Structures are given as C-alpha cells and as structure tokens.
C-alpha cells in the first residue's frame, strides 16, 4: 500500500524568507503523480503544485517549487519570499492514476511571522 509521510507537524518562517516542507512516500509504481495542497483557515483545499513522476524536471509555480527525488522517494515544497497569506496547513498527496483517489500525508502547519 502507498504511504505518504510528512515529518514536520509545524514549521515557522519569517515573512519574505524561504521555507522548505518535507514529504516522503512509498510506492511500488513507476509512474504516478504527486501534489501539494494548501488548506487555509477557510478550510478550502487548494492545489498548489503537481509533479508527474515521469518528468525529471521539477515543477514550479511562481513562488512555489518542488524538489522531486524519485530514487529517494522524496518530494519537498519550497516557498520563496513567504507571505502572510501562505500561512496554512500543507498536505502532500500521491496518486498512481490521474484523477483517482489521493493518499495524503499528515500535514504540516506553516506559520508566517511578520
């Protein structure tokens, strides 16, 4: 069975600084998809970034980028120039089949200090 682990229950970052959230996963599949979702206090889950395992290039979305290490089964999220609005729960998620059910990590609560 697939598992996703986020080892940092809470992280803190100063506004305008950079922070990296960690995620590891376990799967026997060779092709799959990885995601980072953000859940602000409003509770609306928002997709931040996605990575297809067959792509070697790390995904980037504005201030958000990932470090995808397939052999190590690691998928970290880097947030640059942190803003107060980045404060939220962040969930790492995995699926082996596009559009199919997601397996989530336990989440990391990110606090941004002004």
């Amino acid at each position, binding site marked *: 069975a697939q598992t996703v682990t986020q080892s940092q229950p809470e992280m803190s970052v100063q506004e305008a600084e950079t922070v990296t959230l960690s995620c590891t996963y376990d799967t026997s599949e060779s092709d799959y998809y990885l995601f980072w*979702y953000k859940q602000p206090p409003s*509770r609306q*889950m928002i997709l931040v970034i*996605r990575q297809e395992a067959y792509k070697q290039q790390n995904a980037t979305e504005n201030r958000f980028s990932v470090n995808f290490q397939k052999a190590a089964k690691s998928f970290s999220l880097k947030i640059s120039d942190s803003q107060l609005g980045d404060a939220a729960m962040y*969930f790492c998620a995995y699926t082996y089949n*596009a*559009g199919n059910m*997601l397996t*989530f990590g*336990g989440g990391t609560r990110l606090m941004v200090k002004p």
Partner: protein
Amino acid sequence: DVKVTQSSRYLVKRTGEKVFLECVQDMDHENMFWYRQDPGLGLRLIYFSYDVKMKEKGDIPEGYSVSREKKERFSLILESASTNQTSMYLCASSLSPGTGNTEAFFGQGTRLTVV
C-alpha cells in the same frame, strides 16, 4: 470555476442518530470522494464513486455508507452516529483517469460533532 458544495459547514448530532452529509459538484466529474480529516492523520479516504450507482470502499469505510443516485451528488451516511465519528469531512471530485487532468477539487468541509 469548478465548484464542490457541501450542504453544511457545521453539524451537531446525537449519538445513535442517522446523519446525512451531502455533496454536489457542478463540473460533470465522474469521480467523487469522501475523506475524513483528523489532526496528525491527514485526510483518509472513506468511500469513492467513479460513476452513478457505483461505489468503492476506501481505507476507513466502517460505520459509513454512501449513495450516488445522480452524477452530481454524492452523499455520505452515518447509519448510527458515534462520538468517534466526530471529525471534519471533505468531499472531492475529479475527472476520470485517462483524461490527463489530475486535479481533485474539494468542498469546504463539514465539521461534524457527535455528542
């Protein structure tokens, strides 16, 4: 914009009550999901459905059932609510595998308290 709407943001129910959580999506998605969110455990899949009247058990189906009579609506049913079902419930929808679109869209969640 894709919209996934859950009928209630907050619910308080008594032990033993039958509870219905409703979810509606407006983008003609084939797949719909019910997750439960608990601190430190992330989101865990309760049930999912890939077509009308079809359902599959997820990781934690015990104590729950689902209904999908129409494509846009997916209901989660707690047959006899218990205090250990106090949690946040999230509904999601997505297109079928093979469409190339991998994104799941979520509702705003229902925080259920069973007393």
